[in-house]
């Protein structure tokens, strides 16, 4: 039983185990939300359990190596070892990514790639109009950024207080004085995450709150004192509290 045949036969089962263990562990530790929308949690875990049953059945029932017929294109060939090397590379990468590295949220690097507050879709606009008159104390970063994007005027924001949690990401037009308290909006999985955020005027914020750290802010809105920033209305907090990353880092 050559190693190459063994690998070819069982690479799928090995990758399945890696995927299943990672999925179930993420589900059990409440971290599936880092990668997919909560509406898929049950489906994902149930399919992982089904697949686990099949993997165990495969190990119990299936012979260790394939018969010769399935290897017609495999035997001989000077470069056949490349296939094995590729398989080992894929399995190794999967183990490192899914099992060794700690689960993580997306960072500011992705904010920069994805145009913060760039989307002005029908959905967020209709939501914004239904937001007006709601319970402002429960508003998330997403709700406030919808209102800001919709262009509600200074009068509207004058007497409002935002109580929000988000991560710190710099304002590209005035990174010295303004940062965004931001969240990712996820509609399916982290792949489609869209960053939204509320601008915060706080000169010298870098010294106290590193980029990508999580903060809680309770503050009123005001006209942006920054000259170079493109944001018209900002939060001007007296105090910013560093906080832990919430269990659900994305908003939906």
């Amino acid at each position, binding site marked *: 039983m050559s190693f190459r045949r063994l690998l070819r*036969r*069982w690479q*799928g089962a090995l*990758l*399945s*185990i890696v*995927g299943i*263990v*990672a*999925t179930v*562990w993420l589900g059990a530790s409440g971290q599936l939300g880092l*990668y997919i929308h909560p509406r*898929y949690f049950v*489906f*994902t875990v149930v*399919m992982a359990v*089904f*697949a686990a049953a*099949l*993997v*165990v*059945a*495969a*190990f*119990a*029932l*299936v*012979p*260790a190596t394939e018969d*010769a*017929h*399935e290897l*017609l*294109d495999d035997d001989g060939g000077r470069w056949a070892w490349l296939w094995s090397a590729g398989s080992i590379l894929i399995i190794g*990468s*999967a*183990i490192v990514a*899914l*099992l*060794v*590295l*700690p*689960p*993580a949220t*997306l*960072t500011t*690097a*992705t904010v920069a*790639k994805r145009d913060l507050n760039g*989307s*002005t*879709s*029908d*959905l967020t606009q209709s939501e914004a109009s239904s937001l007006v008159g709601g319970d402002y104390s429960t508003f998330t970063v997403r709700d406030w950024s919808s209102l800001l994007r919709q262009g509600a005027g200074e009068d509207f924001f004058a007497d409002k207080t935002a109580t929000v949690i988000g991560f710190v990401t710099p304002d590209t037009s005035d990174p010295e004085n303004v940062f965004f308290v931001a969240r990712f909006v996820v*509609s*399916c*999985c982290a*792949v*489609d995450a869209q960053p939204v955020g509320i601008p915060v005027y706080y000169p010298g914020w870098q010294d106290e709150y590193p980029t*990508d750290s999580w903060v809680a802010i309770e503050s009123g809105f005001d006209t942006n004192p920054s000259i170079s920033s493109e944001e018209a209305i900002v939060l001007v907090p007296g105090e910013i509290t560093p906080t832990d990353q919430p269990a659900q880092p994305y908003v939906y």
Partner: protein
Amino acid sequence: MPQDMQMSQNAAARPFTARRRPGRGLIVGLVIIGLVILLRAFAPETPAGTLTDTARDFVTLSISVVIESLPFVFLGILLSIVVQTWLPEGFLLRRLPKNPAARRVVLSLLGMLLPVCECGNVPLARGLIAKGLTVGESMTFLFAAPILNPVTIITTQQAFGWDSGILVWRIAGGFLIANLIGYIYSRHPKPEALLTPRFQDACALGDRHDAADGKIKRSADLFTKETSAMLPALFIGAGLAGLIQTAVSREVLVTLGSNPVWSVLALMALAFVVSICSNVDAFFILSFGATFMPGAIVAFLVFGPMIDIKMLALLRTTFTAKTLVQLTLIVALCSAVLGLAINYVV
């Protein structure tokens, strides 16, 4: 010598004669699973801090594609196993009409009964080919089912409603392109040449399955074969999708949004890159929203489920590279024509 030959023929006709002590494989399997669980449990809890933000996001995005697609791939493999081992011989194929065009039309509606998104359709289509579906017919099923399925239709309707026409164009476009491709490849003189040699062998072997093997054992055997074919492709596709997303800025694509020609091409490029499942892509493109013209959104919603990075990696398990290049070109051209027609005419 003749006796030897006869023995080896017997062995060939009965692929699973290589028995071993029962229970040993089970123990090996459980040990491997146990080791993997231990590795996950004792992996360092805090971020190592050695990765840059970009590298971390590449890993996060790739994992996200894997975690999101894996259950659909498992579901597709399960359905494929059901079709190949548990349904009576010819249960699905016998009920199809005899007329080739009518067969393709019925096949393109099969997704209504088997609501799997595109990554699950690949193993299912492989199962159907092994059961006697022609290559052209399998393509019609592959390309129509992700769009013409209840989950996709409901999510698209939730995202865009009936009035905008996007849902109707999506369904019509998916149906027409899938049937066109089925028709084109039904004219191919040697359809088996479109398949990879390895998959041809697997199909040929499928006919010789030993009736003495129990259904559970055959199911387990199919599971190891299908996962060994599909999962490496899925992981490669996820890695590529993650890599391109961290390397290419989306702003470039979005700024092209209001031009009737460029918006179509930009959104098709976006669909190719993000490799998102057809069940949810409507919500995704809605978040880009009003900046894009309707023709571009339809092109995204028609092209994306049929062809993207992850899908090409999965399809490569079954079709030759040349076939995939042709398919990509045909689907891209048709989607672009559809999108441009909607932008200019409707």
